[in-house]
């Protein structure tokens, strides 16, 4: 068969049509995502000498600096801690909501609840973060409110311009991200499985622990990742409510790129942040997979 | 309802040696088949046997690797589905949910040279034909399963295709509706006189509706005959097993002086006619098959019309109008099922009773394969 004819036949086959259809989008992602990600990885091995010039040759200088300088180490550790904490809080707070909407709400009202939960997510992120500053500030809503009620005499100061404020604000911003995957996983659970468990003699609590929770595990895992990965790179929240003690790695990346004009070091920090997140996520996925009973527990419907 | 085989008209569709692979999977293995003008033809087989693939090949939705598909003496290779004189009733009915019933039925008339009024009249006539007169303005998504099916039929028939293809059209309906639609489909087919090709996995449905049936296994046609021949003279044990229930007993076969003799375990020796061994008469070990209704339990005082053999009742299954007895003939290690119509005044017999069983050599089918 001639090559032209073979190609022609391939692009009429299911595989060929599928590839052809996906190619514009895939190409776009390749050019605007893959190429830049590779570029940032490459640049992290260079050193800046001038405004737009790099020293020829590759080196690990930036990595040495990023890993040994206590400032970067502190920012990285703080970012990890903040995202870890935010993830924990968001998922713990979200699970009961997802459970309530899936099991406690009439089917015809479910989409309304989900809609209500997702709406705040679609409103300006910047404004929402800024409003937390207004709420948590020295003369803020919370303090003036508590003072008016007489619960406190002096305004609370530990809630703004520090890590606490960053955690609260991020936990608020990412709430719907955590609820949705858990809700979807809970919705997929065949209700007769729960009845079967009760029928086989388990209590409500034990049914929840032995049936519902394991089957919801994939949703929880997804929720954890979908919150953990983006929060570590958050820029706006630490900048607006974090104060100097609440800054995170994204703020340093921005500083390196736009202020200090040290793109290679900024790139190194970005690469390191992604690497650490990737490693933690993979470890978590493996652990989650094991916790869910490995391959044997393919629970729920597809 | 019984349907006598009608004389097949001139071949409208003829397939010869059609081959189809999906990767390594051999979906159609050399299908050769002729379907006549005005015939109600069924493709019957278990899921995955290639019957739907074959139907979709005729419709033009599937390419085939080799062979020819002819419709009205025209080679269909390279002719897309929208240019073929076939129309299809899909398993899901594929009623366009954004259109009304009438718009659905008139969908295929878009490019026809008819005037708007004529198209409307044609669509309404088609709706009337399927018993949905006055439903034209209903929203399609508000219809019941049976109504959707009627719309699908009207939509296909309004184009006056040479062949109507039906892909498991009754599988989504409940039993009562299904039986009603079977009768209606037969009437409709007689009325319009178009060739119908039905894909089904339900042997009863195929027997009831078809002029001829092709039984398919693993991409091959195992037997293609009219329902009665298929039921009475299945060409292989597999076909026999797929269509209805058949008992099998081991037998020794020999030819003697032009006579075909079989010695059946528990029943004795009998002579069989040439058409009773459709896959050829074996020499030596083979088996015989017989349907449960060809055997009769003899009550006190009854005389066998042909031959009789003693047996012991091992299991009784009561079905209301029928009783199934599993009996064991003397010297045989497996049971044989007998179905008896329950007649007023005739008792159902008990397990353990010794009975005489009447059987007829003419009802036997001889197979080469042992049992």
């Amino acid at each position, binding site marked *: 068969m001639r090559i032209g004819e073979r190609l022609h036949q391939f692009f009429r086959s*299911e595989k060929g049509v599928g590839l052809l259809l996906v190619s514009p989008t895939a190409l776009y*992602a390749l050019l605007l995502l893959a190429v830049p990600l590779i570029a940032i990885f490459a640049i992290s091995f260079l050193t800046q000498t001038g405004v737009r010039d790099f020293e020829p040759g590759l080196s690990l200088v930036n990595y040495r600096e990023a890993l040994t300088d206590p400032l970067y180490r502190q920012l990285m550790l703080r970012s990890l801690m903040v995202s870890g904490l935010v993830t924990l809080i968001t998922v713990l707070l979200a699970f009961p909501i997802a459970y309530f909407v899936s099991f406690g709400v009439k089917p015809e009202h*479910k989409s309304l609840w989900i*809609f209500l939960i997702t709406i705040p997510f679609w409103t300006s992120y910047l404004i929402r973060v800024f409003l937390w500053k207004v709420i948590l500030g020295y003369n803020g809503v919370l303090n*003036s409110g508590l003072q008016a009620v007489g619960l406190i005499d002096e305004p609370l100061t530990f809630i703004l311009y520090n890590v606490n404020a960053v955690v609260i604000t991020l936990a608020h911003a990412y*709430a719907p991200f955590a609820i949705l995957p858990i809700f979807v996983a809970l919705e997929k659970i065949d209700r007769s499985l729960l009845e079967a468990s009760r029928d086989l003699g388990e209590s409500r609590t034990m049914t929840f622990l032995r049936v519902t929770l394991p089957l919801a595990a994939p949703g929880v895992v997804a929720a954890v990742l979908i919150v953990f990965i983006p929060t570590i790179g958050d820029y706006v929240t630490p900048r607006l409510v974090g104060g100097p003690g609440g800054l995170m790695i994204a703020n340093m990346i921005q500083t390196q790129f736009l202020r200090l004009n040290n793109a290679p070091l900024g790139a190194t920090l970005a690469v390191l942040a992604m690497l650490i997140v990737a490693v933690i996520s993979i470890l978590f996925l493996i652990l989650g997979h094991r916790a869910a009973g490995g391959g044997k527990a393919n629970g729920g419907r597809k | 309802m019984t349907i006598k085989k009608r004389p097949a008209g001139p071949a409208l569709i003829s397939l010869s040696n059609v081959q189809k692979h999906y990767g390594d999977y051999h979906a159609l293995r050399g299908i050769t088949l002729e379907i006549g003008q005005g015939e109600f033809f069924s493709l019957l087989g278990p899921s995955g046997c290639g019957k739907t693939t074959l139907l979709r090949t005729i419709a033009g939705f599937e390419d085939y690797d080799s062979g020819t598909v002819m419709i009205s003496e025209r080679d269909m290779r390279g002719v897309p589905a929208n240019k073929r004189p076939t129309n299809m009733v899909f*398993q899901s009915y*594929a009623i366009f949910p*954004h259109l009304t019933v009438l718009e659905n039925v008139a969908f295929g008339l878009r490019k026809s040279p008819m005037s708007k009024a004529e198209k409307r009249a044609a669509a309404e006539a088609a709706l009337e034909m399927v018993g949905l007169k006055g439903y034209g303005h209903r929203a399609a998504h508000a219809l019941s399963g049976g109504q959707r099916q009627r719309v699908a039929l009207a939509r296909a028939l309004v184009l006056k295709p040479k062949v109507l293809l039906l892909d498991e059209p009754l599988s989504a309906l409940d039993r009562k509706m299904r039986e009603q639609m079977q009768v209606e489909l037969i009437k409709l087919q007689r009325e319009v006189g178009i060739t119908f090709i039905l894909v089904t996995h339900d042997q009863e449905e195929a027997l009831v509706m078809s002029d001829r049936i092709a039984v398919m296994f693993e991409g091959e046609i195992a037997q293609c005959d009219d329902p009665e021949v298929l039921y009475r003279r299945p060409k292989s044990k597999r076909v026999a097993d797929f269509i209805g229930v058949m008992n099998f007993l081991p037998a020794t076969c020999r030819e003697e002086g032009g006579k075909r003799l079989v010695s059946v375990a528990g029943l004795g020796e009998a002579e069989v006619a040439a058409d009773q061994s459709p896959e050829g008469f074996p020499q030596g070990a083979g088996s015989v098959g017989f349907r449960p209704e060809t055997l009769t339990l003899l009550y006190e005082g009854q005389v066998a019309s042909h031959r009789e053999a003693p047996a012991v009742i091992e299991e009784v299954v009561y079905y209301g109008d029928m009783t199934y007895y599993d009996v064991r003939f003397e010297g045989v290690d497996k049971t044989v099922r007998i179905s008896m119509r329950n007649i007023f005044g005739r008792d159902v017999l008990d397990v353990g009773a010794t009975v005489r069983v009447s059987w007829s050599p003419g009802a036997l089918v001889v197979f080469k394969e042992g049992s």
Partner: protein
Amino acid sequence: MKSLKAYAILYLVFLYAPIFLLPLFAFNSSTIIAFPLENFTTEWFTQLLTLTEMHGALLNSLKIAVTSAVLATVLGVFAAMAATRYSFPGQKGIMGFIMLPLVLPEIIVAVSLLIVILRMGFDTGAWSVIAGHTLICTPFAIAILQSAFASLDPSLEEAAYDLGETPASAFRLVTLPLVMPGIISALLISFTISMDEFIIAFFLTGSDPTLPVYLFSMLRFPKLLPAVMALGTILVVLSVLLITIAEFFRRRGAKRAGLKDTGGFL
């Protein structure tokens, strides 16, 4: 379930608290954003009219959001169709990569695009923001469109061929009308995301700020804060409106396809 319901309502209050505060301060005559409230005023809204720089930023944002929404939806239609209708080699990997911006921190997308653009000697501007926004909106568009295409019975298109239509006219007469609600929904969601997005715009916008970038710069001036509240109120109302319309279309699409609504975009 009762205590769970109480908890759920409290949770909603927590989710909505910041948003409910917005109009309170937007219509409050005090220049300090704090309780107690003073008098009712619409002064801050009229002040918005005088901020000509903001008007430029708004126009710039609208231009970027419309273009990104259209591009993301077109790319989304291709990918969603490919993913739901066909199976092709490397499908999981390719689709996973296209969906990656959904979880990737935006700052990573922003700096990596910035590096490539500067290295290649181009200047940043509205076009580079559009490029970035299209990238991050596409996964959302795909998520919406995928469910629109998946709820479509593939035999509908076959039925149209069977009744004499060509693949192109079958797409136009059957597929397009049925996925149209999904397309509109994807357009609106992408538009909303682009209008709100800050980081990528912050890095890639060049000399013409987008509305969020301008808003961010406003936050540094205490006397502009009441106007920020007013602007925020308008933005939130518009977002909620757009999302409600998008949800309406998504549901209508599901209803048309004869499906039971299961709720939620993602």
